């Protein structure tokens, strides 16, 4: 087990470098560049810019310089935001995304697990139908619709909550709820499906046959197997939540990393794109590793060779 974790941890580094390389290639294939604006630049000015940023050198030299810097964990300066280093930008904007992402996931987990488990146990009951209908509503309403509707009601009609920006806890309520809705719905449905599946399996029948009381069967055996799909969903979901969800950041004008990243792609801000991609890829891979490890704990049928 320990060897497995160590091996996976070590492999993250070359993988992140591979991700960076592929991304770099994609940026170079994509048309447009960071300095283009509405007006066409005189050739002399364009040349000045290319010289300044080393774009006049052959591609392998540029690639080499970039990789060399990245290995030293120096992503350089953003091309769009003058004088701001990529590391500084990530350090500054990640906490915003992480805060709302984490809060949203906790909220989603609480609601989703509770609703899913109860719905599975009381299959076809009013609660089952009600919560699953609510979950479906959650899945059917896009967050770019939900967010503005909440704003309309709570900020522009009742004037209770601030409609956007970052501030105290009051500012967090609507973004977190907007973000959590769809995840809570996912989790509720996955939990219910997983639980139903497990409750019909042989080992649960065995447990029941052994005469264990229903509560123990459910919580000790059922839940462990039943939430496997939830766990495998959690890894990527949490990673993307921590990285920020662009729509919510846009609607509520939150200075998170997700919006920063979209802007970087649209601006062709190469160092910033690469920096965020490297950071997120490491984050995602660590979460995925955690998911794989937790499989072993949750489901005794899974073994790691």
């Amino acid at each position, binding site marked *: 087990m320990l060897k497995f974790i160590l091996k996976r941890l070590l*492999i993250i580094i070359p*993988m992140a470098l*591979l*991700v960076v390389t*592929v*991304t770099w290639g*994609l*940026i170079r*294939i*994509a*048309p447009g560049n960071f300095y283009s604006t509405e007006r066409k630049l005189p050739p002399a000015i364009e040349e000045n810019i290319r010289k300044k940023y080393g774009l006049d050198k052959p591609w392998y030299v540029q690639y080499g310089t970039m990789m060399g810097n990245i290995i030293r964990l120096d992503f350089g300066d953003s091309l769009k935001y003058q004088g701001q280093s990529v590391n500084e930008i990530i350090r500054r904007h990640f906490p915003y995304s992480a805060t709302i992402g984490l809060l949203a996931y906790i909220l989603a987990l609480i609601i989703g697990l509770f609703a899913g488990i109860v719905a599975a146990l009381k*299959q*076809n009951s009013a609660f089952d139908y009600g919560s*699953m209908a609510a979950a*479906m*509503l959650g*899945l*059917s*309403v*896009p967050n*770019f*619709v939900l967010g*503005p*509707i909440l704003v*309309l009601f709570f900020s*522009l009609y009742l004037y209770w909550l601030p409609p956007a920006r970052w501030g105290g806890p009051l500012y967090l309520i609507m973004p977190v709820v907007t973000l959590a809705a769809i995840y809570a719905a*996912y989790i509720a*449905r*996955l939990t219910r*499906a*997983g639980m139903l*599946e497990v409750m*019909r*399996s042989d080992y649960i029948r065995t447990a029941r046959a052994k005469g264990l009381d229903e509560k123990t069967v459910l919580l000790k055996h059922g839940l462990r*197997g039943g939430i*496997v*799909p939830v766990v*495998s*969903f959690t*890894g*990527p979901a949490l990673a993307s939540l921590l990285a920020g969800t*662009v*729509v919510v950041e846009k609607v509520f004008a939150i200075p998170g990393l997700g919006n920063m*990243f*979209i802007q970087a*792609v*649209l601006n062709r801000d190469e160092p910033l*794109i690469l920096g965020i*991609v490297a950071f*997120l*890829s490491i984050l*995602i*891979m660590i979460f*995925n590793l955690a998911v794989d490890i937790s*499989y072993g704990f949750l*489901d005794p*049928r*899974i*073994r790691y*060779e």
Partner: protein
Amino acid sequence: MKEDINTQGDGAQDAPVVKGTSLWKDAWKRLLKNKLAVFGLAVMILMVLAVGLGPFIMEWTSGITPDYIPANGDLIRSFPPSLQHPMGTDEAGRDLLARVLQGGRISLMVGIISTAVSLIVGVSYGAIAGYAGGRLDNVMMRLVDIIYAIPYILIVIVLLSVFGGENIPSWIGAMSEVFGGGAGLNQIFLLFFALGLVSWLTMARVVRGQILSLKNEEFVLAAKSTGVSTPAIIFRHLVPNALGPVIVYATLTVPSVMLTEAFLSFLGIGVQAPYASWGSLASDGIKNIAIFPWQLIFPGVTMALTLFSLNFLGDGLRDALDPQTRKF
């Protein structure tokens, strides 16, 4: 509870028949007993008929097309619902019903084609990785991790710009030709595939997780010992057993690709105007919610109703196809 009793009853009746009804026929029967699923199916059939035939009927009866902007400048504005325009008009004075119907075509196709692409790629990939285990599994899953970490927006931008315009692959061009063709539609079809190609990753992970937990079960060992070939074990024994979560996840993929498409349209790399999708209509409508609420309500409700029905149908399918239930 009713359903469970019924399925058990079915099982009991079917038991004596040796060959019996086929797996699919059986599932179909079960599905029809699930009223919610039937409701979902009915709505979906109606929806497909409406978006498929609706635009033709509208054009034939009233001459209204989704991209018709009135020549009279005074009519170019958003009118509330009326007899002539049951869903009102958008800011350009275009009939919203016609646009919702046409948008439905695009949205349903996004959902179906992209999910199909992601299903085919994701299920086979995840099943192979999960079953093979060891080094192959490791390499395959690391590849998924790598692709996962590359921002899909970048992939979509590159795919659309490299294969867009004149470089459109001929088979995509041929597909869009069926629906009328043209540069705008080609781009939309390209988008379907691009979306499919970036959304199979989670599916692969879900399937792999299922296969991992199933492959040590007795029925697999039994199949192995009777000399069933590896592909047959994967695709005839393991995959059907993992179908429950796969179908649930696929029904989740449909709305998520629809939303991704809406988001991309919002960023300007999605559906080409004057075409629209429900997502893009809703994201346009949300901006005007305080003034022209019908611009959000109609496309929004239509989209929500469709996703609702899809989810009911998905649940029904899961119950109907679940091989575990059949064992009883």
